[in-house]
């Protein structure tokens, strides 16, 4: 993306387009990636509730894959995940592994 020069900006850094944060893919900041294992998922939706970045997608009222464009890898979902019989449904994996 070509960056704008100083003459082309809205004075005062006022954003005139609503919802423009969606264009800013903060997922690139992630160093740990949450990985979802549906076999251990009981669909409690704790991860969906706790995710501070709305990075857990849903489908037909159920948990679906992560939205890796916006997941910063904070790990809250993995911490909160109760899993099934002691087996977590979300584990954090280092990005470069």
């Amino acid at each position, binding site marked *: 993306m070509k960056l704008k020069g100083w003459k082309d900006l809205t*004075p005062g850094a006022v954003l005139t387009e609503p919802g423009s944060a969606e264009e800013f893919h903060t997922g690139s900041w992630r160093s740990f990636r949450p990985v979802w294992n549906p076999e251990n998922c009981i669909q409690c939706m704790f991860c969906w509730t706790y995710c501070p970045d709305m990075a857990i997608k849903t489908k037909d009222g159920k948990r679906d894959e992560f939205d890796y464009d916006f997941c910063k890898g904070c790990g809250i979902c993995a911490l909160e995940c109760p899993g099934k019989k002691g087996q977590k449904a979300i584990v954090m994996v280092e990005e470069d592994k």
Partner: protein
Amino acid sequence: MAKVLAVSGNEAVANAFRQINPDVCAAYPITPSTEVMQRFTAFVSDGEVDTEVILVESEHSAMSACIGASAAGGRVFTNTSSQGLALMWEMLFIASGMRLPIILSLVNRALAAPLNIHCDHSDGMGARDTGWIQLWSENAQEAYDNTIQLFRIAEHMDIRVPAMICMDGFIISHSIARVEFLEDDEVKKFVGEFTPVNPLLDVTKPVSYGPLILPDYYMEYKRAQHEAMTRVSKVVLDVAAEFEKLSGRRYGLFEAYRLDDAEIALVILNSAAGTSKDVVDEFRDKGVKAGLLKPRLFRPFPYEEVAAALKGAKVVCVMDRADSFGGFGPMYMEIASAMMLISGNRPVLINKIYGLGGRDYLPEHAAMVLDEMTEIAKGGRVKTYKEYIGVRE
């Protein structure tokens, strides 16, 4: 038709605000600016204005509320002094960075410690780099006139930055002086309707203020902010020309007093300039070519114009009613920068610090300085470039 009244500086400024009738005012009154709000809130109570006055718990909150109201789309003002301005400091940058044309009347007062309520310019000079326009005023008349003009300047579509009017605490704020008021409808017409830019209250066009801007764009926004400031001088002069037609009173970027052929020139702000002008006259009567430059627009500073006005002088003394401890006074640094634009012979430039914390500045102080400058102009040695005057050893 002008009305002439005997009023305090604070009362003159409060009446300018009454005549303009801004949408919102958030303030936390502080000595010596308290009377501006005391009088203005009386206008509100008496129904003479329909300004929404917001009671806040501190000056930081006052400026925060002004920022919110201005971003919402209102014409907004506040008023403070000294510690109050110091507490606003964080928010001053936010107001200017968001390009909100908030007006602040600053009644200059020293900064603690030691605690002091009297006049010096440390508060205004401390806000030098906040991105606010500053107009300085010698007396109540100038403070009144500057207040009216400043709304036009700050709100100009080429500029849109916040601005403050400075006048001397107690010396001007509390002294009763002759002030020529314009008629209410003349002022309203001169200032005009406020035109908001990207107002938050326009729900048909939603906007966000205050986003996080990272290294990829921050510098571009700051560069654009400087550009807005480069357009201020022209607007100040245009507005002054229009104001002169209305009032008969002439304003420029600064006042050049008997400066054309001056060999020695004082640079001095605000009320002390009045005292100094009398002494300049005495020296002229004695045949000494003395002159004076009284800055009006201090931010943005008109370097080229000031350099052109001072280049003929042999000796220039910059009088500072504020200090930069371990440095020269703040006005000296500006004049020194302006001098760098002069090619060839530059005037000898000395600095005196005077009047801190309300210490009297008397005609004999001006005379002492002008005598010293006369000696230097004759080829005498500069004893010291920075000196405190009116201080006990």
